[in-house]
């Protein structure tokens, strides 16, 4: 009688999208934060087009790493309100389906904000890509997945700690360094067209696969931890 992995994932995702649509907590906070970072950095540096190509990758990914923290904290805070997570733990639903649906949901939320804010980077930093733009799309996809897959897992891990909002960045940032480096280097290489981003994209893909599988396998332990 137990629901399958995909059916439960879909049910969780639908529920999360509905909750976010009604509250817009994560989207508003993330969008505002990302917007602030774009404007503040643009006013602080006033870079030329050449300089922009070198720095915009770093600014973009650091902005979205910080902005994603808001969504990641929010996604589990919802489950802690009224202790709804206990109802999930008592049910027959697999823990991995909850993790996967949260990753998908956060991917959609962060991805949407990236789509909305990216044009501002073009305007404020006067960025024109010299390398192929489709490669940028691949890096955005893999980079965003790396942020949310890791972030969703560590947000759940810090769920029962006293200062979870502080704990999440402390856990997440160090382990995200390889992915962040790959995202920034790949983006910069594509924008400047000087070097091939292939190695960094492969590193990012490998990072995504490893951390997604690890999250799926280990999430039951995290969910049932006292």
């Amino acid at each position, binding site marked *: 009688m137990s629901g399958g992995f995909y059916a439960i994932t879909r049910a969780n995702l639908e529920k999360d999208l509905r909750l976010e649509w009604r509250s817009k907590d994560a989207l508003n906070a993330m969008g505002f934060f990302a917007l602030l970072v774009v404007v503040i950095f643009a006013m602080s540096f006033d870079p030329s087009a050449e300089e922009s190509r070198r720095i915009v990758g770093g600014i973009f990914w650091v902005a979205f790493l910080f902005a994603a923290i808001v969504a990641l904290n929010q996604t589990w805070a919802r489950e802690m309100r*009224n202790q709804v997570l206990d109802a999930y733990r*008592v049910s027959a639903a697999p823990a991995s389906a909850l993790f996967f649906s949260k990753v998908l949901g956060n991917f959609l939320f962060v991805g949407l904000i990236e789509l909305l804010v990216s044009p501002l980077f073009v305007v404020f930093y006067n960025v024109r890509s010299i390398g192929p733009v489709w490669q940028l799309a691949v890096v955005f996809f893999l980079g965003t997945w790396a942020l949310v897959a890791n972030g969703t897992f560590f947000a759940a891990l810090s769920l029962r700690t006293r200062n979870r909002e502080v704990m999440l960045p402390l856990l997440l940032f160090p382990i995200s360094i390889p992915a962040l480096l790959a995202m920034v280097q790949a983006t910069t290489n594509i924008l400047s067209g000087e070097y091939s981003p292939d190695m960094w994209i492969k590193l990012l893909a490998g990072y995504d696969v490893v951390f997604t599988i690890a999250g799926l396998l280990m999430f039951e332990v995290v969910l049932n931890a*006292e």
Partner: protein
Amino acid sequence: MNFCFNASTLYVLLGDNGAGKSTLLRMLAGLTQPTSGKVELNANFTRQQVGYMGHASLLYDELTGMENLRYFAELQGMGTSHETIKKCELAMNCVGLDPGMHRNVHAYSQGMRQRLSLARAVLHSPKIVLLDEPFSNVDAVSMAQMSRHLGELRDAGCTVIVITHQVTALAHTGDEFLTMQLGRIIESRKRAQLRPTEVGL
């Protein structure tokens, strides 16, 4: 503590604050692991045959009552069929709530939340029903309705374990009244052994 809970019986757990009632219920639900000893379910039981209602509502405030029930029905593997929707509607009716109500749960009164929480806990027809303070903030009419519903579940073969400080609410439905103190069951009484004040006389 060494105790065996039987099928088709409605147990009422009594005791002062800190007696260990909620901890016992959480251990029976598999939400807390005992520091020593073990909780054993009948070999035929699986986790999904347990229905649990905690101190908190275990509901999403931003969803309506029906949306909550349909989500939890899916978690229990009941799918999204027309039959499941009917079951959700019936569960709401059984606790005196209108399935057509389009209000989100955050607009519910505390008593309505309690009733919806009970509907959620028993939606999937569990064999073991664990309820922590289901009658808190519930009016007398709803309390009687909920109490009757718990009696029906017991008659259908469920093991029902209820923590309450309002013993009169289950004085005519409960089968066995257990009093806990410092993590131990210190007294076990049948319905006939209740004191007159406990049955509301």
